[in-house]
């Protein structure tokens, strides 16, 4: 017994985790009614274990998990900040957790009020005029925003003509994917040597067939797109729209907002910027905000206030629903709790600390790793492992070696425009000691790459598993357990 067995391997025929009285209802012979090809020829082979075995198995698995409460998690563009526990307490209040979306509005006024207030607060954060809380996460927010683009052009009679969505070559992969799914053609815009959008290339590409531009600001290199006002002018002049990917909003809270920059549509990732659980702990929430001229197209219904009452407001020209009920309501409760506990000054400090932490780490690491862009970063920054590559140590090896020291690896090989890229986002919730410990380890790994490269190349050394065979897993995936005798 190592605790590493699959639950199938723990199985003993006849062992059960339940004890029920004998069922006296005669068995129904379903097989007699089904066509032969739908009838199971053998038992399904489910694991047979005791309740305690079952608990130990899953506890052992959960102990192998790593999250932001286990250690530093500097995953670039993912904003893995700490999720304050007060959010969890509030989300469990029966007034929020023991209600049903089909309840009459007058019996759930508190929940409606919360959603209304959150819509209002997010309007301030984004500089937009109307907000929907429906989208389940960032990519669904993008798709929602692009359907709004489409509807807007449809009503203007320009849908057939406006096909092109511009996406910079540093963009998140979800941007082009959402544009394609929404029925647009994607045109990639190159970055200049400063790591920001090449304005001349954008200008040359813009025309009467332009639907719009999708942009993350600061971008995935952690750099602020200082030409954003000019970009907005270029796109608006040809009749297109601007979409703000809010994945990096942690860098701008209270400092500037997408409305001020000239964007028409915005999504936020509440599970990044607004401290709701992320990754395996989700679900996410990706509210979408729009300027006045696009407000009629938002997913329906919105929460509105009529006198002292909160009501559901249907929008007749809406693109329709994008998610059941009210989106991920429990997540929205947590985000609202976060906004209230932080307050406007607190949110501003989030950005200031996030940016300070990123630049502090960048400065400490600069002598040991290549930094492709000289200017100050925002809340995240990229390093290039080019120097280490010449010694035979790749970025992947550095990432694996970090695991030995109890750190989660940063995002690697993204953005694609940086060779051997390492993308680090420390977030505002880490103490200086943690940032220093991480920097010390990165520097130690840089030394190892020079002096004892085999230590890095063979990492991780102290984890439950070593290097996984990613290639075979991708080329010949095994997605189902097969009993040894079936092999």
């Amino acid at each position: 017994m190592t605790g590493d067995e699959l639950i199938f391997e723990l199985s003993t025929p006849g062992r059960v985790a339940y004890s029920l009285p004998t069922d006296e209802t005669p068995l129904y012979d379903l097989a007699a009614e089904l066509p032969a090809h739908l009838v199971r020829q053998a038992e399904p082979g489910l694991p047979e274990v005791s309740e305690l075995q079952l608990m130990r198995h899953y506890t052992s698995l959960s102990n192998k998990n790593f999250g932001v409460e286990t250690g530093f998690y500097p995953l670039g563009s993912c904003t893995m900040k700490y999720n304050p526990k007060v959010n969890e307490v509030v989300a469990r209040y029966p007034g929020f957790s023991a209600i049903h979306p089909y309840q009459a509005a007058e019996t759930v006024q508190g929940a409606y009020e919360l959603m209304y207030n959150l819509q209002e607060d997010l309007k301030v954060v984004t500089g937009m005029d109307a907000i929907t809380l429906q989208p389940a996460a960032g990519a669904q927010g993008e798709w929602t925003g692009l359907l709004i683009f489409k509807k807007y052009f449809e009503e203007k009679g320009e849908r057939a003509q406006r096909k092109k969505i511009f996406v910079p070559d540093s963009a998140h992969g979800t941007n082009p994917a959402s544009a394609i799914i929404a029925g647009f053609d994607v045109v990639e815009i190159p970055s200049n040597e400063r790591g920001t959008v090449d304005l001349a290339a954008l200008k040359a590409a813009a025309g009467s067939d332009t639907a719009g531009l999708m942009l993350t600001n600061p971008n995935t290199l952690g750099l602020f797109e200082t030409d954003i006002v000019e970009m907005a002018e270029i796109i608006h002049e040809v009749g297109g729209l601007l979409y703000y990917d809010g994945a990096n909003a942690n860098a701008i809270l209270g400092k500037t907002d997408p409305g001020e920059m000239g964007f028409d549509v915005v999504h936020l990732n509440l599970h990044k910027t607004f401290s709701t659980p992320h990754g395996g702990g989700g679900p996410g929430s990706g509210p979408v905000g729009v300027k006045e001229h696009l407000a009629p197209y938002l997913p329906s219904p919105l929460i509105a206030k009529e006198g002292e009452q909160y009501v559901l407001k249907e929008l007749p020209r809406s693109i329709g629903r994008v998610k059941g009920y009210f989106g991920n309501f429990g997540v929205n409760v947590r985000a609202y709790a976060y906004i209230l506990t932080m307050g406007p000054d607190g949110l501003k400090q989030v950005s200031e600390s996030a940016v300070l932490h990123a630049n502090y780490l960048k400065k400490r690491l600069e002598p040991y790793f290549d930094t492709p862009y000289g200017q100050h970063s925002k809340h995240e920054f990229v390093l290039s492992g080019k120097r280490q590559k010449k010694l035979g140590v790749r970025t992947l090896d550095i990432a694996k070696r970090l695991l030995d020291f109890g750190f989660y690896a940063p995002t690697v090989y993204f953005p694609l425009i940086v060779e051997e890229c390492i993308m680090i986002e420390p977030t505002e919730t880490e103490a200086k000691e943690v940032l220093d410990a991480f920097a010390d380890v990165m520097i130690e790994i840089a030394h190892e790459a020079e002096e004892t490269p085999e230590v890095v190349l063979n990492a991780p050394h102290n984890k439950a598993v070593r290097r996984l065979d990613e290639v075979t897993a991708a080329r010949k995936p095994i997605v189902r357990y097969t009993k040894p005798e079936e092999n």
Partner: protein
Amino acid sequence: MTDKKVCLFSKDHEWVELIEEDHVRVGISDYAVEQLGDIVFVELPEVDSEVLKEAEFGTVESVKSSSEVYSPVSGTVAKVNSELEDKPELLNEDAFAQGWLMEVKTPGPFSKADLMTYDEYETYIENL
């Protein structure tokens, strides 16, 4: 096997080999494959479909990323390397031999246009 020294290259790292005056073979360079890492999936166009110069004609996916491949010529797809469906690793093994992607029939005689020679391409990637 294709001799890479007789190939012409695009800035997007595709190679072209002239088979007949209006018939070419297309693949991606060893440099591109090296950048991508272990390739796990290749998506190719349908035979008889049209490809446009500088437009996407397929996708190459590696453990690191998924990249579009852009056609260095315009014409009709005459043949695709269907062996890559089950054995994408052929691209890693030899991008210029069993790792070719498609053959294209061009409307007129193939013209080099802005494509680079092998020596020019070598200089180009050195400066990337």
